[in-house]
């Protein structure tokens, strides 16, 4: 039940884009086509799940026993940067096909605030190892859902006549706001059942 709450909460209720504002740069940057959005989404799911696991180990096996919690930010960002590089090299060797699909998105992910965000939020919530991994995967799924829905909408407005000053980022932000209102409907959905 607890895991179900983390999963539903991560995908719908506290969606990283629509209610927590994490990972907006790639969300606005690579959502012009559904195809690229899918690639980015897969890369984010992969890296966020791995990063949740690795940063949990760093936090609970190194930082907490040594009372170095104030080094959290420095340690996490370095570990995430190294992890992304490592994942990139492994994928390149193991599966060239997957590398073709994810390759260009992986380096971008180091500075995606969703990845560092999930690591910091997991530590803040005091999750156990499995909870942290589930939370990483669920939040990444929610992020991917958001970017896929948004890319679908964005492909369609390519043919719409938009006032010149609203083209590009302004209309993208307004559209995200409207989607955010829709996702707001999930807030009360499971109240009393799960939370």
């Amino acid at each position, binding site marked *: 039940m607890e895991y179900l709450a983390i999963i539903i909460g991560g995908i719908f209720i506290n969606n990283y884009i*629509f*209610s*927590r*504002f*994490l*990972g*907006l*740069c790639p969300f*606005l940057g690579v959502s012009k086509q559904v195809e690229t959005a899918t690639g980015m989404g897969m890369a984010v799911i992969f890296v966020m799940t791995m990063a949740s696991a690795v940063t949990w180990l760093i936090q609970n096996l190194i930082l907490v026993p040594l009372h170095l919690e*104030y*080094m*959290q*930010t*420095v340690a996490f*960002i*370095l570990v995430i*940067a190294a992890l992304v590089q490592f994942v990139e090299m492994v994928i390149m060797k193991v599966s060239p096909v997957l590398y073709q699909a994810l390759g260009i998105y992986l380096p971008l992910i*180091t*500075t*995606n*605030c969703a*990845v*560092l*965000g999930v690591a*910091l*939020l997991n530590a*803040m919530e005091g999750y156990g190892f499995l909870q942290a991994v589930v939370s990483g995967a669920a939040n990444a799924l929610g992020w991917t859902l958001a970017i896929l829905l948004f890319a679908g909408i964005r492909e369609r407005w390519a043919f719409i006549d938009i*006032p*010149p*000053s*609203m083209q590009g*980022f*302004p*209309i*993208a*932000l*307004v559209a*995200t*706001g*409207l989607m*955010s*209102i829709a996702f*707001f409907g999930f807030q009360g959905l499971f109240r009393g059942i799960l939370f």
Partner: protein
Amino acid sequence: MMEKMLRTFYNGIIPENPTLRLVIGMCPVLAVTTAVVNSVWMGLAVIFVLTASNTLISLLRKFIPDKIRIPCFIVVIATFTTIADLVLAAVQPDVHKILGVFVPLIVVNCIILGRAEAFASKNPVHLALADGVGMGIGFTLAIMVLASIREILGSGSWFGIRLMPAGFEPATVMILPPGAFISLGFLLGTMNLVTARLAVRTSRSKQKSSSCAAHAGLEG
């Protein structure tokens, strides 16, 4: 030298405002603008980290090997972010709690790494310093404007002081996530409209120098 510093400083506030012109580092812009007070503290933290990291990276630019420059920049930025985080937690514990995860997330803010890569690593210290302060103030002003819009419409107050008459029904949606996206979208749209109008006017009168008009034309 002074003139060049001033121009670099001004560049970050209006012509290349990181939030309203370059549209980078949007996560904190949307997240911390529920009240003006929060946005001021966030802005101060960003000004500190941006100025300090720009200065240090510019000082170290001859020593950092080109191939590992990004990890080096990240370590410098992470150090200053940790300092800002700890200081804010000590000085303003309530605001620190509201800003939450977005203070440590200054590390991965595109503005900071972007300025380190695009400006500080290529320019002398005094210019890097001016750029850091200018970009930081530009960011702070932008989030203060957005926070003012959201706080006045969403809670009827500004800096916590009641502005609206008693009968005013606050539009709560403005301080909720959807309001952040929609008000920033219209703010950017208005900025674009104003700069486009200004560009038309300058190109008509042709009193400004040609480079200035070309710059404005590009943006419009």
